[in-house]
């Protein structure tokens, strides 16, 4: 690797598209190939495909969180104008598959508020929606439990945590390490329910042809897997289902698995004998498309006087649904981050009357790094040590939990480069002493990390009349996958990128894994590069399947790392928090496309800022409901909140990665951001808010109790 900081990721930075002159009109400086289509509205999203004769469907959902479903009376709805059918458990064939959410209306009992109960099909969306209100359903409510607590009586240990890791790990003597430490931190952090809230709602159009082949225009992070799931649920062969998804308006994990809207559309189209369109409302997205579990995280750290850790414990409590288990790997990042002679990580779940939690950008690392990196800051304060230095002295030689060597690890280089660029040197560590007008100013730092993985993929490459065509069932969820794959192919082929056309976003293309887990570019890029190499040998045609290569990816700990620095202002009179500056430096292997990479990094950092200060789906224990279920109430950072977010990167030349050498960049940007901001809030004010989001209410008011039974909100804390 080079130990100097790479290029500044400015808006026109980057050299990946050097020589891309023919495409300059539409893709200057590596800008995405479909950019013009998107800004002119020519790009079609799932709901927008012109399908002749399509009708509309709108779901009926349960208004209670727990109970049995009694009589369902559709007579009034069926009599309303334009209504074609009302589908419910009593008139719909049982569905297959393993996922409760995709069984639609089969359940006789309600296990979360917002659960599907029926579907109305009508000639217009308005007619369908009006009739959905008229479907009469009686419920026999039973007691519900939606509140996660540290002392919940039914906590249990899951067999595995996402995506298949052990729930608990440990080595060494944690108690002894803490007892013998010169400085200790033992604190609890909480994070609330958060929702992915992609801009494009979950929507699908389903249409059956005479041969019984189902076409679904869906919004999905993976057309191949979506096809397989839809086929499984409907009892079809994979060849009888076609998923078409050329453009996806964001997913952040919520479109990584098939969601009920696609099954609803397919079932309704079969019943109606016509194509059917389904788009979930924003409110329905809060219950039918996944969310991030709330977390209660106990972190205990011990350190010797020189800052070296003597023990680390990270114990996590989170929720899952009654009928679906999803165990977020919140403490998994702690197994990677710092060297220590003793470590314990645990995960416990409570099954509540909530919709199933699922993937949301960097599941595990996002909440986990918030807690670990906040605790590291508290430890630095307790030790009287600079928080950058504390992280540097604890940088491990091998992955702490597994003992595996790192394929490359440049956290220290990121911390040093970031400190230099941010102007960290000479920082006065005292909290609450810097005034800027009515504001108190502070700075904070935190580390970022995310695993570098890939999955098997296939792809083909063809010589066409005027260039090359790459075919792969990849998904471009707004990341610029088409552009990145074009550049990878052009580089292998030695061709002008303008002559390379990438066809993706359909299950009829060669099978490919999801855009998820920051694995898209590595998984697809491996197959595209291999297909192009095969084409060069063959002269006309190349095909690749990377299953064998990927199986050999064992033996190394592969992770991206980064360091984020935040400057915050807090008005002590009002509790307003503003972040005038956020700066990240990342080491994520080789950066394939600087322009696209910059968007991923600053997008992740912006989402991390949003998590730190705004994002929260309130859970009402009496109503058994999520509240604030629209974008006027679930606040996401606006442009005014992010005046300066800058990302830099360090080039890594890591021989233990896929041939393209990238580690994946979709998620690392969100990890650690919230801790950097929280740490800066402490530096500005002397108040340590350990419950996200950090709001004026918490900064002004320390009297509430959090889910851990500890005082909620701000506490004066000088590191215990």
């Amino acid at each position: 690797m080079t130990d100097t900081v790479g290029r500044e990721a400015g808006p026109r930075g980057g050299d990946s598209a050097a020589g891309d002159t023919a495409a300059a009109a539409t893709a200057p400086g590596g800008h995405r190939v479909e950019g013009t289509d998107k800004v002119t509205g020519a790009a079609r999203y799932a709901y927008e495909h012109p399908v002749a004769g399509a009708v509309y469907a709108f779901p009926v959902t349960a208004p209670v969180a727990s109970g049995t479903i009694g009589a369902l009376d559709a007579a009034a709805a069926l009599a309303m104008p334009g209504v074609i059918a009302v589908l419910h458990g009593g008139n719909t064939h049982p569905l297959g598959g393993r996922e409760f959410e995709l069984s639609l209306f089969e359940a006789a009992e309600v296990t979360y508020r917002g659960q599907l109960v029926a579907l109305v099909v009508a000639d217009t969306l308005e007619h369908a929606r009006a009739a959905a209100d008229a479907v009469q359903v009686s419920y026999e409510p039973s007691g519900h439990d939606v509140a996660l607590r540290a002392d919940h009586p039914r906590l249990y240990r899951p067999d595995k945590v996402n995506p298949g890791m052990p729930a608990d790990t440990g080595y060494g003597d944690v108690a002894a390490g803490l007892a013998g430490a010169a400085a200790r931190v033992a604190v609890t952090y909480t994070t609330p329910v958060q929702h992915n809230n992609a801009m494009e709602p979950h929507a699908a159009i389903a249409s059956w042809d005479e041969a019984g082949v189902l076409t679904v225009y869906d919004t999905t992070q993976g057309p191949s897997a979506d096809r397989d799931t839809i086929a499984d649920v409907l009892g079809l062969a994979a060849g009888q289902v076609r998923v078409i998804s050329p453009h996806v308006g964001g997913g952040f994990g919520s479109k990584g698995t098939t969601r009920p809207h696609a099954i609803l559309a397919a079932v309704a189209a079969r019943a109606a004998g016509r194509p059917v369109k389904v788009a979930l409302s924003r409110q329905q997205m809060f219950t039918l498309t996944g969310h991030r579990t709330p977390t209660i995280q106990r972190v205990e750290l011990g350190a010797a006087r020189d800052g070296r850790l003597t023990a680390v414990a990270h114990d996590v409590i989170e929720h899952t649904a009654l009928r679906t288990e999803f165990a977020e790997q919140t403490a998994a990042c702690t197994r990677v981050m710092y060297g220590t002679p003793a470590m314990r990580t645990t995960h416990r779940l409570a099954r509540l009357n909530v919709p199933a939690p699922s993937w949301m950008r960097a599941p595990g690392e996002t909440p986990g790094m918030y807690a670990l990196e906040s605790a590291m800051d508290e430890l630095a304060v307790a030790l009287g040590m600079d928080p950058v230095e504390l992280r540097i002295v604890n940088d491990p030689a091998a992955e702490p939990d597994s003992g595996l060597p790192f394929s490359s690890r440049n956290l220290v280089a990121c911390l040093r480069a970031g400190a230099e660029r941010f102007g960290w040197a000479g920082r006065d560590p005292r909290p609450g002493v810097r005034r800027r007008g009515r504001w108190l100013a502070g700075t904070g730092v935190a580390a970022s990390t995310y695993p570098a993985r890939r999955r098997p993929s296939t792809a083909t490459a063809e010589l066409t009349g005027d260039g090359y065509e790459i075919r792969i069932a990849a998904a471009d969820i707004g990341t610029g996958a088409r552009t990145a794959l074009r550049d990878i192919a052009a580089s292998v082929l030695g061709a002008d990128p303008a002559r390379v056309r990438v066809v993706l976003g359909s299950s009829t293309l060669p099978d490919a894994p999801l855009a998820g887990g920051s694995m898209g570019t590595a998984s697809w890029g491996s197959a595209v590069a291999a297909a192009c190499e095969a084409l060069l040998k063959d002269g006309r045609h190349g095909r690749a399947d990377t299953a064998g290569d990927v199986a050999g990816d064992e033996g190394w700990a592969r992770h991206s790392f980064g360091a984020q620095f935040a400057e915050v202002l807090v008005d002590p009179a009002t509790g307003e928090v503003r972040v005038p500056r956020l700066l990240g430096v990342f080491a994520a292997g080789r950066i394939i496309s600087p322009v696209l990479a910059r968007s991923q990094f600053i997008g992740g950092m912006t989402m991390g800022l949003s998590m730190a200060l705004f994002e929260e789906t309130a859970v009402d224990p009496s109503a058994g409901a999520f509240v604030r279920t629209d974008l006027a109430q679930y606040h996401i950072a606006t442009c005014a909140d992010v005046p300066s977010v800058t990302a830099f990167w360090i080039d890594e030349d890591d021989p233990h990665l896929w041939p393209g050498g990238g580690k994946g960049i979709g998620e690392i940007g969100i990890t650690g951001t919230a801790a950097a901001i929280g740490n800066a809030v402490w530096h500005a004010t002397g108040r340590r808010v350990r419950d996200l989001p950090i709001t004026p209410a918490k900064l002004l008011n320390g009297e509430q109790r959090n889910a851990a039974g500890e005082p909620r909100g701000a506490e004066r804390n000088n590191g215990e």
Partner: protein
Amino acid sequence: MRPFSYARAGSPADAVGQFRAGAAYLAGGTNLVDLMRLGVTAPDHVIDVTRAVSREIAKRESGGLTIGAGVRNSDLASHPLVRERYPMLARALLSGASGQVRNAATVGGNLLQRTRCPYFQDVALPCNKRSPGSGCAAMAPGADTAHLAVLGHSPFCAATHPSDMAVALTALNARVCVASPAGGGSGTANTGGIRVIEMPGLHRLPGGMPEQDTTLRPGELITEVKLPPPPGGRQAYRKVRERASFAFALVSVGALLDVGPDGRVRDCRIALGGVAHVPWRAHAAERVVLGAVPSAEVFAAAARAELRYARPLPGNEYKVTLARNLITAVLGELMP
């Protein structure tokens, strides 16, 4: 959304003449259409009044302004006389919503927008404002009260009025002109005439009838807003919210301070947003400041006086502190 009929009105008389029970007036639609989609409100007849009321801003002989009810929020905010003479109003408008929403929203509609209480908007939960007598989900243990009222609420409703503009109009002693239907809006031609309401009298506290946001009678239509001649002194509008843009106020303050040549305050107006079912005129605070020699201590005493009778709900105690601190800070900014 339930089916409804739609008609355009050409004049206030035409509009109020068309009104009948179950009808709703439509202006910019930025709030009504959302509520119709959610099923919070379901008018069977929608009367489009965008061509029925004035879209003009006119100087009055008295030196004040007459603002047509159809004036867009963005046009009002950028009007030179508003920016120069009523800066509190321009600032309040610009702190509301987004550019796109301000381009569509009208003065009349802004005044009549409904609360954003999460329970009002979730039709499956009890809400006395949406469904009288059904109860108030916000009063249940653990409810999400962060954005609800701390002043003037009742056991039946703790909703807040969401408008920023109305807070400034309250502090500026604006008057709202209303066209009334004849004899209770029976559908005959309007002969009911014009009624004038001084702010904040347009809005009402929830009491036992939270379903009534305002003192308007059925079918009454806001036609214009009159601003008195510009007051002396300095004005400010500060809005506190979690994110920096496109969010309703946690608490906002519109204030005016005029200090006479003797060094004593001769005019002080304070109105609060985000704390009550109405834009809250802080008379108790004003009384402390009026006639006093302004100082940080006086302002703090004024803020304490206003919030003395605040009754926060479990979970929104911070609003009392915030309102107190914000009044003190904004008055401090207005010191000459």
